[in-house]
Structures are given as structure tokens and as C-alpha cells.
């Protein structure tokens, strides 16, 4: 059964990638998901839609994002490191790729209101941005713990004309923001599009969001070949919370057998690492939960990765062994954050620093190889938090002066 789905192709008719995925939602959302699937299929095959999206990605978001060769870091660790610079996109992360596509799709479906969930605030900011651009009403749900951690992003969203509503139940982080967004959507589905921010949730989202991020991998493959004299990187590394930036960059290399795909999960939210299947937020995937199926809280220094589940396609890729997922601890992440900043002059998002931390940890295994890291976002939003986390040594114990 697992063999019916090729990696990075469409899921099967029931929205499954192998044994994962599906559409576990209330009856009220079934017609909306069917409508969304049909609308996306139609739009994705429509040259006019693709041209409009490509135009926005180019002229508004700044694509293509470059690939940067990290000479000083490479020399330091003995691994050739290339960075796919999603941090240079408008709004500071890869999230803009997905939201521009979904916002155009919402308009095409005649839905004037968009809602979103956000963890670190990157997807919320991106959604608010796209909604401002297209003149759509926008409501973003955010756990109130995250609103505190990322107060500046809350203001950014409001500045962009969005309303930010706190999710005040449960762990009051990303998973609860998803719950609140789904509750809103169940009540507003006739006029509202739910702009889901990762490769998760009910079918067609995991597939649709991956397709909207595929541009990352497609660009990166060609850019790497230009840099590497036609060769492909040995390993592609990305951080994985829900897994959208990883899905985007992996999809460009899925058919290249010689390129390994590595996902870096936060140690406190390693859904694939724990390997226990569950069903929440409309999908079957790996899920952090207790022995009774109550979803447990993910904990990491990066709000954007604080998600107890993972996109179903990642669970599938882990199942079939096409991708490998490893957990990275907060301390390693802070080291990676400081290391990239001082060696390359690039401050990474804490999320992206997870991918770098996995490379730094694996430097012996990777010695002499070429690694492409998806630098999914920039770290400006995290500087204050990292300054606090560095504590009294102010990073001097991590190579800063």
C-alpha cells in the first residue's frame, strides 16, 4: 500500500501518503475541503494563475532567493555548506511562498476573509502581508504564550491590518492556535479561507502547501548545479516543526537518489523521533501524546517549531527511509545561531538554526561532503530572546567577544 505513493507526488485519493494523512475533520468542513482541493487543482493547472503567482513571488517577495556559499563556516567545520536564503524573502522567511498562493486562491474562490494560525509569528506576518496586498480581511490566531514571546510580530501583524486573537486554552502555543483557527473556520467556512501555514492538517493542505513551497527546492537544485559544476549536494538539511520549509526544499531533490534528506526536529518536539502515530488537526501522522492519546506540549526555544505533530508526508518519508530525522537540543541551536552569525554575517532564525546545529553536530560524518541547508528565516525576531538566553556570559562562552 505504501508503494502506491511516490515521494513528492500527489497523495492518494484519500489524501494519504502511505499510512499517513487523511481528512479527519467535522462534517461541516468536508464540502469546504473538497472545494479547496478542486480549486487548487484547477488553479495549479491554469497558466494565468501560475503566472500571477510567479509574478508576485518575483516582484513582491523577491524570488528567486539566492544560494550563498559559506566559505568561512565551511573552512571551520570541514564541510562545504551552501545556504538557500529564504531569509531574504519579503517578510523574512519561506512562509510568503505559501501565503501568496493561498491568498490568490482565496480570491479565486470568492472568499474575502482569511484566517491563519501562527507560532513564532512568521506565518501570521506573511498571511497578514498577503491579505494587505490583496485587500482581504485577516484574523490570526496565536497562543498567548507566543504573543508574549514574539510581541514585535504581534504588532507587525496589526500594523499590516490584521486582527490578532489570542489562543488562551491548552498549552497556549501553536497547537492551540490551530484549534482556535479550526473553530473559527467551522463557523465561517462559507465566507472564509483557512490559510494553513504548514504541510499539515487535512487533505489537501499537506500536498497543496508542499506544492506552493516546491519553488524553494526547484530553484535550489538549479542554483546548486551552477555552483557545483552540475553536481547535486550530498545532503539537504532543513528544520522540521510542521515541516513546510523542509517539504519545499526536499521536493526539489526527491528524485535525486544520491542526495540524502535530513530533517532537524527540536528535541522537545520530535514527533518523528518519538515515532508514535496519532490523529489530530485533521491528519494522521506522528504525534507527541500520552498513553491515552492526549496531545502533549512541544517545548523548544523556537516558537515556530513548538508543534507536537508533523506533516504526514514527513512521517511517510521517515517510514520509507527516504528522509532521516534527528532531534536537536536547545543548547546546540544557540551555538549554531552564534556560529553562523559570527562566521558568515547571517543571523538565522532559531528555527533555521536547528538545521545548522544538525550539520555542526554531524561534521565528522559530513567531512568533505557538500551540504545544502535551508535557511528558512532570518533571526532578527529572535535577537532579544537569544540575548536573554545567553545570560551573563553574553555569548562569550559561545565564541563571541
Amino acid at each position: 500500500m505504501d508503494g502506491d505513493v511516490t515521494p513528492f507526488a500527489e497523495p492518494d485519493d484519500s489524501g494519504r501518503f502511505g499510512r499517513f494523512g487523511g481528512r479527519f475533520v467535522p462534517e461541516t468542513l468536508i464540502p469546504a475541503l473538497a472545494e479547496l482541493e478542486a480549486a487548487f487543482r484547477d488553479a495549479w493547472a491554469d497558466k494565468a494563475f501560475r503566472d500571477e503567482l510567479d509574478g508576485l513571488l518575483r516582484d513582491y517577495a523577491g524570488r528567486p532567493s539566492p544560494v550563498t556559499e559559506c566559505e568561512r563556516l565551511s573552512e571551520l567545520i570541514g564541510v562545504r555548506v551552501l545556504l538557500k536564503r529564504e531569509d531574504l524573502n519579503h517578510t523574512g522567511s519561506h512562509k510568503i511562498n505559501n501565503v501568496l498562493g493561498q491568498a490568490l486562491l482565496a480570491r479565486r474562490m470568492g472568499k474575502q476573509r482569511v484566517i491563519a494560525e501562527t507560532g513564532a509569528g512568521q506565518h501570521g506576518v506573511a498571511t497578514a502581508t498577503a491579505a494587505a496586498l490583496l485587500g482581504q480581511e485577516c484574523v490570526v490566531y496565536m497562543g498567548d504564550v507566543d504573543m508574549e514571546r514574539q510581541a514585535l510580530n504581534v504588532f507587525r501583524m496589526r500594523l499590516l491590518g490584521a486582527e490578532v486573537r489570542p489562543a488562551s486554552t491548552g498549552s497556549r502555543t501553536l497547537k492551540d492556535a490551530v484549534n482556535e483557527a479550526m473553530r473559527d473556520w467551522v463557523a465561517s467556512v462559507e465566507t472564509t479561507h483557512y490559510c494553513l501555514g504548514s504541510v499539515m492538517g487535512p487533505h489537501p493542505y499537506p500536498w497543496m502547501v508542499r506544492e506552493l513551497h516546491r519553488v524553494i527546492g526547484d530553484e535550489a537544485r538549479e542554483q546548486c548545479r551552477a555552483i557545483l559544476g552540475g553536481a547535486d549536494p550530498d545532503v539537504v538539511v532543513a528544520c522540521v516543526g510542521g515541516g513546510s520549509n523542509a517539504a519545499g526544499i526536499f521536493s526539489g531533490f526527491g528524485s535525486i537518489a544520491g542526495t540524502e534528506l535530513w530533517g532537524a526536529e527540536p528535541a522537545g518536539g520530535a514527533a518523528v523521533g518519538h515515532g508514535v502515530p496519532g490523529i489530530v488537526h485533521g491528519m494522521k501522522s506522528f504525534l507527541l501524546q500520552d498513553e491515552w492519546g492526549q496531545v502533549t506540549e512541544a517545548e523548544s526555544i523556537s516558537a515556530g517549531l513548538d508543534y507536537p505533530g508533523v506533516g504526514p508526508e514527513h512521517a511517510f518519508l521517515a517510514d520509507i527511509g527516504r528522509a532521516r530525522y534527528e532531534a536537536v537540543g536547545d543548547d546546540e541551536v544557540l551555538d549554531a545561531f552564534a556560529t553562523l552569525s559570527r562566521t558568515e554575517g547571517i543571523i538565522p532564525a532559531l528555527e533555521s538554526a536547528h538545521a545548522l546545529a544538525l550539520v555542526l553536530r554531524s561534521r565528522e560524518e559530513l567531512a568533505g561532503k557538500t551540504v545544502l541547508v535551508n535557511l528558512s528565516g532570518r533571526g532578527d525576531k529572535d535577537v532579544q530572546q537569544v540575548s536573554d538566553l545567553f545570560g551573563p556570559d553574553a555569548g562569550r562562552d559561545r565564541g563571541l567577544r
Partner: protein
Amino acid sequence: MTEPAGIGHGRLEAHLRAARDAGRKLLVPYITGGITTGWVDLLHAAALAGADAIEVGIPFSDPVMDGPTIQAASLQALERGTTPASILSDLRAGAAELDVPLVVMTYVNVPFRMGARRFAAELVEAGVSGVILPDVPLEELDEWSPAGDAAGLETVMLASPISPDDRLAALCARSRGFVYGVGLLGVTGERSAVGERTALLAKRLKAITDLPVVMGFGVSTPEQAAQIAADADGVVVGSALVREVLDGADPEAVGHFVADLRAGLDAN
């Protein structure tokens, strides 16, 4: 539409049909399992006060179809250490003499984690007749129904105001016990008034099925219950009752609350 082979019509449906066919409007109160220490006493009080079946919630950490009241009740129960096992154990110990059928409402990850077959077997052992899983639409029934059907449990399907006609027909064909009409777009919770969608959906369901049609979501007062039941066979009352319990209602107060709903339904 033909019925899937081998799925029986059980005690829940027989009980509700008999009451309905005798001219009675059906009353199905909802109580969150484990909400208080003596929560099973609340079931007895509800039964004595005129409930025709009782819905018992097994709390889940992420109840996306529930509004603030049931969320708070779920959290209170979970914080008390409530588990599916503790609820079923309480039912085995204290609900055997209940003369109304019980329907468990929970989210799919609870049976999935325990294993659908074990979950089904334990429900039957605890005297439960039916199951409601709001995040399992027709398309995903295979996750649950092979186990539930084999154990003889009646799986109640939910119908939405925006389900197209062909889906309503399929839902009614597949539903057992009763068909649960969700009378609005949104989550559970009290509403100040009954919207137009409720009657419309009730009428659409009554036109295509002989199953008992029970409407829920937003049914808060005896007057609303009576109004909605005019077009349906009965009502589920959840949040309004659970709020009373959260505010400290004892079995006697719960009995009064349910009796008032009963009187509202009987007055028509």
C-alpha cells in the same frame, strides 16, 4: 441507499425509536465524564428527570468541535486525572442500573491510541451502546467502524447544515442509534437564539430518514428545546448543562435542569 451488511440496529436505536413512536420528544443530555468526583450520580439524576439517552464525553486535549464550556469541562476533567479507563471504570461501577442507553462522545485519537478493538470492547463492557466521533467523517470511518460494528456499538453520524443532499442521504444510511443534526455552523456552546439553519436541517433529515433525528449544538433552554423539537425528534443539550455542573450543580440541581427541559419538550 442500501445499508452496509452486518451493521446492527441496537439498543440505543430501539430505545429512541420506541419513545419517539410513542409520541415523545427525545432528550439527550451531555455530561463530560470525570468532570467531578461523583459525576456518575449526575447521569442517574438526568435519567430520573426524563432523559431518553445520555451522552458521556470522554475528554480530549484538543476538542476542535467544542466551544469554551466543554473545553473548560474537558480541561477540568483531565486535570482531575480522568482517563478513558477511569471513565469506563466509573461506568462499570456505577451505571449498570441506568435504564437509559449511553452514548460516548470523544475524538478519534482516543480510540486510535488505545486501539479501536480494545476501545470498542471496553465500551461494551461498560454498558455503552453508541459512539459519536465528530472528527470522523464518512471518508475516514474505516479507522473506527470495523471495530465498532463488530462489537455491536451504534456509531452515530453527524450531519451539517451545509452537507449536500447526497451526503445527508449517505450519512443517514450509515448512522445508527440516531442521526445527530448539527443545527448551526460552529462549535458547541450556548446561543441566545435558535437560527434558521436548525429547522431547515431538521426538516431535510426528517424527509429522508426514519432514524430518530436529534438536533444539537446551541440548544440552551427549555423553550429552545421545544422550538427545535417541533421539526425534529429531539435534542441534545450539552454546554448549558455542563455550565451548571462547572458552576457547582449537584445531582439534584442537574435533575431540576433536565426536568425543566423535559417539561419544555412535553409541553408541545
